[in-house]
């Protein structure tokens, strides 16, 4: 009996060790749409369910309250939602940066296009943070010359958009969008000094044609996602209260 099996095995091995000469005679190719006409597999569906419920429970957990609806189109050069984001990046990342380097962040710059959703009046949830910031971008701090900070001011003046900046900056434009005054923490920008500017890795790498971050003295990668900044910020505020203010304005004559 054993011999018989060994013989079978031998023959099988023998067959598969030979190259079986075949050729492709016909190929048929198509795509099949996955839509509601196809029933869901119950086992898969049941497997996903607890994950989905947990994610939704988490995303829908209330972490703050918004007394108004805030949109990035609320103002010409600064908006409540943009100010909130830039100030949140400072408030949440400066302690991390200071602990690591002993230095403070002098200014935060984000981009207007990076505000991906409104914050609606009512409860603020984790989902709100995912909607406002669906991308994975993280905070970086760039040590750059005042000269480049001045280039940044030129960029902001020419862009004429409400790119979010933190409340450390006071940038005033004249009626033709020329810079009439630019101060950081109440002082003029010194072109030879080194400033620590926090932004996100997308902008640092030239997103929105922000080329002024290069060259630079050093780059500090905080490994802190902007979305997590927002979540942490919201969790600390019972009610958010962002305001449009005078940090970046055009003077009317």
């Amino acid at each position, binding site marked *: 009996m054993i011999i*018989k099996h060994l013989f*079978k095995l031998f023959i099988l091995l023998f067959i598969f060790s030979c190259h*079986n*000469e075949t050729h492709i005679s*016909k190929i048929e190719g*198509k795509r099949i749409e*996955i*839509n509601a006409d196809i*029933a869901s*597999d119950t086992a898969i569906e049941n497997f996903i369910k607890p994950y989905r419920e947990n994610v939704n429970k988490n995303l829908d957990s209330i972490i703050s309250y918004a007394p108004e609806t805030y949109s990035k189109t609320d103002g010409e050069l600064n908006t409540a939602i943009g100010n909130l984001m830039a100030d949140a990046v400072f408030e949440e990342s400066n302690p991390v940066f200071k602990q690591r380097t002993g230095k403070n962040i002098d200014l935060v710059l984000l981009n207007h296009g990076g505000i991906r959703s409104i914050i609606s009046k009512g409860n603020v949830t984790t989902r709100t943070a995912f909607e406002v910031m669906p991308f994975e971008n993280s905070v970086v701090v760039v040590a750059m010359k005042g000269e480049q900070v001045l280039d940044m001011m030129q960029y902001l003046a020419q862009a004429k958009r409400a790119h979010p900046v933190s409340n450390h900056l006071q940038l005033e434009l004249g009626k033709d969008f020329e810079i009439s005054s630019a101060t950081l923490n109440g002082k003029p920008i010194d072109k030879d000094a080194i400033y620590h500017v926090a932004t996100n890795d997308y902008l640092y790498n030239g997103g929105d044609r922000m080329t002024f971050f290069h060259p630079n003295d050093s780059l500090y990668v905080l490994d802190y996602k902007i979305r997590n900044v927002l979540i942490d910020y919201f969790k600390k505020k019972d009610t958010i209260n962002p305001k449009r203010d005078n940090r970046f304005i055009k003077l009317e004559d």
Partner: protein
Amino acid sequence: MKRRQFIQQSTAATALLGLGGLGLQSFGPETKKITILHTNDVHSHIDPFGPDHERNANKGGVARRATLVESIRKENPNTLLLDAGDIFQGTPYFNYYGGELEFKLMSMLDYDLATIGNHDFDNGIDGLYAQLPHAKFEFVSANYDFSNTVMDTHVKPYKILVKDGIKIGVFGLGVQLEGLVDKNMYKETVYQNPIEVAQDMSRILREEQKCDLVICLSHIGYYYRNRPERVSDLNLARATKDIDLIIGGHTHTFLPKPTIEKNSAGKNVLINQVGAYGLYLGKIDFYFEPGEPVKSDGASIIV
């Protein structure tokens, strides 16, 4: 071995095994059919799109894909299920579970192989490595050298699968990471020229390993209209030989049907990509006949 002798031996073997009650179909005269199913750039889209979505309302969904794959497998057990990368990133499932659910579900659907896309590095190469225990399928990538990373030995350049006696060689290709992915994420992963690697791979699989079917699982992108010289699936097809099928990804190209392209030897190559988010399943059926091809112009292709 001389062919005639071979036929005699195999006939004898069939007869013998037949007596033993073990019919060996693979040496019968009939046609064999191998079905290749594929997805790409699913990007953590586990649930179908909601009814209010502007473009993809009520489309997609892993649980539906499972039903479809199972029904195709029932029809033809000689089926492979492949994914061309960017499994990760795109819904909160990834943010919450880091890819665990994606890998677990692909394992439940019995995926055979996947290649690695740029977004699969989104939690760093360590984040990808951490999810490997959840994947029962294997990864292939021939042009990423992972030797100096945690992924070393966990990714093979190619894999040979045998279905119904048909030897199927599948190799993987990944997109250039520099400029696309933060270096801190991919660390010491070394990218090599996909075309040179593919030339090597197809030779190994076809000539050395004697594969009957050679498939490239690619995440290099279908074609770049604004940079036509950039390495892409179309350029890869033209610059190589001995590849039968390129399954693509990265560019989220929704091909209504597979593209037929001529390779460097003037033979047909099929390229297919099914866009993104699990909205479609690609299905390519290969029919095999024993012996040498009768016609010199290759297989008939119906797309």
